[in-house]
C-alpha cells in the first residue's frame, strides 16, 4: 500500500523526464537519469553510502581496536601506522572515527525514525479527528516549540541521564512537534478529499480510513521531512556529546572526541581537532545534499 505511492511518484517523475525527450529504459536507466538530473544529490548519496558502509563494516575497515590504549603512541602525529594520528591515550583516531560512524548513524537514524513515527501519529490524529484533541495537541506543540531544539534536547538529555538510548530519545522528542505540524496540515486538506468521502460511503471505519487512505498520501512529505531532519539530528548528537551530555564512554562519539581534544590540543595536536569535525561535516553535508534532491523529486512545487 505504502510502496505504491513511491512508485507512483517515481513513475510520474520518469514520465516527465520522458516527455522532456529522455529515453528511460528500466530501473537502471532511471537511476542514470536521476544522477544526471541531480548531480549534487548523487554526490550526497555516495557520501552517505560510504559512511553507512564504514559503520556496517567497521570491524573490517578500522585497522585497530578503537578502545585499546597505548601509552607510547600518546598524541602520535598522523603516520603510516596511525593514519590520522592518535589521541592522548594512544587510541587510533581513524579507527575511532570509523566506529564513531556507527554511533552517529545510530543516533541520527534512530532519533529521526522515532521522532517521525510519533510526529506522524500525533499529526494524523490531531488533523483527522480535529475537535478538542486537535486543540490540546496544538497547545502542546506550541509549548514544545517555545524552546530552541538544542536547548530542548539538552534538558531532555540531562533529565533522562547519559546513555545511547536516552540520547536518541532526547533528540527525537524535540522533532515530534515539527513533524506533527506538517502531517497535520496535510491531513487537514486530505480529509476533505472525495476519496475519503467515498471510503466513508462504502462503510469504512474512521481509523481504517485514516491509516489506509490518508496516511499513504502523506508519505511524500514524510520522506522529505525525514531526510531534511537527518542532518540536523546528527549535528544535535555531535553538539550534545561535545557538551558532555550525549553519548557516554566507551562509545567513540565524534562530538565527544572534539570536546576531549578541544582547547588543549588546538596548539599541540591539531589532528585531534580537525578530523572528527571533518567526519561530522562530511556526513551532514552528504545527508543535506541527498535531502535537497529528495525534496526536489518528491515535492513538485519546489522543483526549479
Amino acid at each position: 500500500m505504502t510502496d505504491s505511492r513511491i512508485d507512483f511518484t517515481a513513475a510520474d517523475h520518469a514520465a516527465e523526464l520522458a516527455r522532456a525527450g529522455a529515453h528511460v529504459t528500466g530501473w537502471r536507466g532511471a537511476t542514470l537519469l536521476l544522477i544526471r538530473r541531480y548531480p549534487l544529490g548523487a554526490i550526497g548519496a555516495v557520501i552517505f553510502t560510504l559512511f553507512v558502509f564504514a559503520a556496517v563494516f567497521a570491524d573490517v575497515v578500522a585497522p585497530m581496536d578503537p578502545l585499546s590504549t597505548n601509552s607510547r603512541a600518546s598524541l602520535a602525529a598522523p603516520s603510516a601506522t596511525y593514519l590520522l594520528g592518535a589521541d592522548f591515550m594512544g587510541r587510533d583516531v581513524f579507527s575511532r572515527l570509523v566506529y564513531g560512524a556507527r554511533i552517529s548513524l545510530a543516533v541520527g537514524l534512530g532519533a529521526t525514525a522515532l521522532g517521525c513515527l510519533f510526529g506522524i501519529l500525533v499529526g494524523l490524529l490531531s488533523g483527522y479527528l480535529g475537535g478538542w484533541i486537535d486543540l490540546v495537541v496544538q497547545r502542546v506543540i506550541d509549548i514544545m516549540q517555545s524552546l530552541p531544539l538544542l536547548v530542548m534536547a539538552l534538558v531532555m538529555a540531562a533529565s533522562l541521564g547519559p546513555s545511547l538510548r536516552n540520547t536518541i530519545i532526547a533528540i527525537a522528542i524535540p522533532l515530534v512537534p515539527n513533524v506533527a505540524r506538517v502531517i497535520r496540515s496535510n491531513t487537514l486538506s486530505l480529509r476533505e478529499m472525495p476519496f475519503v468521502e467515498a471510503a466513508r460511503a462504502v462503510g469504512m471505519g474512521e481509523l481504517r480510513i485514516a491509516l489506509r487512505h490518508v496516511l499513504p498520501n502523506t508519505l511524500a512529505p514524510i520522506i522529505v521531512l525525514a531526510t531534511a531532519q537527518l542532518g540536523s539530528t546528527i549535528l544535535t548528537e555531535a553538539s550534545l556529546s561535545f557538551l558532555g551530555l550525549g553519548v557516554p564512554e566507551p562509545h567513540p562519539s565524534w562530538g565527544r572526541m572534539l570536546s576531549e581534544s578541544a582547547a588543549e590540543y588546538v596548539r599541540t595536536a591539531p589532528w585531534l581537532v580537525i578530523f572528527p569535525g571533518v567526519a561530522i561535516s562530511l556526513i551532514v553535508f552528504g545527508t543535506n545534499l541527498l535531502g535537497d534532491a529528495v525534496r526536489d523529486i518528491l515535492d513538485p512545487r519546489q522543483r526549479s
Partner: protein
Amino acid sequence: MGAYLVRRLALMVLTLFGMSVVIFVLLRIVPGNIADILFDSAGMVDPAEKARIVAELGLDQPIAAQYLKWIGGLFQGDLGYSYLSEKPTIEEIAPRIPITAKLALLALIFSTVIGVPLGVISAVRQNSGLDYVIRVLSLSGLSLPSFWLGLLILMAAVRYFGDIPIYTRTPASLWDELLLYSLPAAAVGFRSSALVMRLTRSSMLEVLRQDYIRTARSKGASAAAVNFNHGLRNAVLPVITIIGIEAAFLLGGLIVTETVFNIPGVARFLVEAIRWRDYPIVQNLVMFIALVVVVVNLIVDLLYSALDPRIRYAD
C-alpha cells in the same frame, strides 16, 4: 487587531505556563539532585548533613508544593537562590544576558548581511555556475557544526597571530568588545547565513515567476529595477520570518560557541547549571529563553502585517 492581540497574548501566557510545568517536572525526574552531586564529588558521607541540605533547599517537599513556591516567588520578583553560588538567581543571570544578546545581535547582522545578497544573486543567476557555487557553500554552512568552526577559527588564530582571542577579562572598550565578539559571532552566524540565503533564494525565485515581474520587464524596466524594486521588496517578507526564527535558533549555536570561546554568557551558563543540577538557575533560565522565543515570534508576526498591507489579522 485588538482582539487578535488579546488572543495572542492569552496563548502566550498559556504556552509559558505549560513550559513552566514541563521544565519543572523534567528537572525533578532526574535521578540525583545537587546534594548527591556535592556529596559524590566532595566525598562527604554524613547522611544527617546531607538530609539537612536537602531539607534546607526544600527538595524533600512534594513536587506540587515546590512548584507553587517557585511560581509564587516569580510573581513577586523572587527567583530564588542558586544552589551552587548561593547568590540570588537574578544576580547570576542578569549580568550574563547582555553578553549573549550582543553576540546574538552581531551574529544576526552577520547572517543577514551575508545571506540576503547571496540569496538574491543565486536566484537572479539561477542554474548558473555562480548559483551552484553559492548553493554548495550554503549547504556546507548548514553542515559545519558551529563549535567545530569555532575551534578552527581558534586554531587559525593560534597559527597566524600566536594568540587565542578568547574571553579572559572583561572587555575595556567598545572596540575591544567588538574584537572579542566578532569571531564567535561569525562562527554562529555562518550557519544562520546559510539558512537566510536558502530562504531568500527560494522566496526570490517564487516572486520572479510572477506575472507582474514579466509586466515590469516588458514595460522596459532595467534588470536592476526589476530585481530590487519588484522582486526583492516582495521576496523579503518570508526572510523576515526566518530571521525572527533565527533569533531563537541562534541560542542553540551560542550554547556550544560560548563554550568554545569561553564567553561568560547565559547560553554556556545554562549548560553548567544543568550539569550541577542547579534547579533555580535552570528553570528560570529556560523560562527566560521561552519568553524571548515567544515574544520574538509575536514581534515577527506583527512586523509582517505592518510591512505587508495585504496581511491583516482580523477577529
